[in-house]
């Protein structure tokens, strides 16, 4: 696994917020998991999806970049405060390498879904 990715996973798994005051909520963040529907207000999934590009030299792979994604599912229309936290974490870890790929609403479950993609080396 690329180091940048493992660091990002650690950061995403430790996202917390203190609303209402006096409480600390951690965002349940699964990595590549099948079982990802805990009965919570919001939850996330992070995964490394595929190799995007590579640079070769001397018949060896010198550098490779990978594309991954972070998904946030939330009952809150504005992501219950997690949207900003995830965006900031992405910004801290890979600068401008990320973008919001889709934002949809699941009618069957009543959950809002954000999907960010990012690129790591």
């Amino acid at each position, binding site marked *: 696994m690329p180091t940048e990715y493992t660091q990002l996973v650690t950061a995403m798994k430790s996202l917390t917020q203190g609303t209402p005051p006096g409480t600390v909520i951690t965002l349940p963040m699964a990595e590549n998991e099948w079982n990802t529907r805990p009965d919570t207000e919001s939850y996330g999934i992070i995964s490394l*999806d595929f190799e995007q590009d590579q640079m070769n030299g001397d018949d060896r792979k010198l550098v490779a970049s990978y594309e991954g994604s972070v998904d946030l599912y939330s009952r809150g229309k504005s992501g219950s405060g997690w949207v900003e936290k995830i965006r900031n974490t992405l910004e801290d870890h890979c600068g401008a390498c990320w973008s919001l*790929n889709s934002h949809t609403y699941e009618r069957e479950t009543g959950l809002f879904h954000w999907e960010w993609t990012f690129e790591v080396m």
Partner: protein
Amino acid sequence: MPYTVSTSGMDDVNRMLKALGDDAGKVASAALYEGAGIMADAIQRGAESIATAPFKYASGGQTRLPSPEEKDIVTGKRRVGIAKFKTDGMDVDTSVGYGRSGYAMLAGRKVAVPLIANSINSGTTFMKKQPFFRKAASTGGKRATDAIRASIEKNLQEIIDKNGG
């Protein structure tokens, strides 16, 4: 200290532009068609690699894989499409994807094809994510750009040769 300015490059460009004349749009369209074809093929190949499992409602907090029927909807004929080219002088524009792929029948219900494609590509609370479209767009883009460039260079050279270089 004297400076030398070489204009031989500019002469070539001028000759090329004169020779091109009204053919600019045609050259651009031909090149874009090559690139769009590569993108469409990449998306189609990606869709064909989607993993499936017989349909079962997702339960116990688990996601499920798309059923073979759902995969058929995404990989079927006339699904991945190339939009009609929009031409504006030397600019040609198109899009490749599921944008106008319409509707299909699934278990007796009418479903929108782009919706199924998106639920597999981005995942949902009950569908496992398989980013086939994103991968095709990401990795096929470079090949498409190369093909577009190669096509333009080839066609330009032909026009120049035809017009006596």
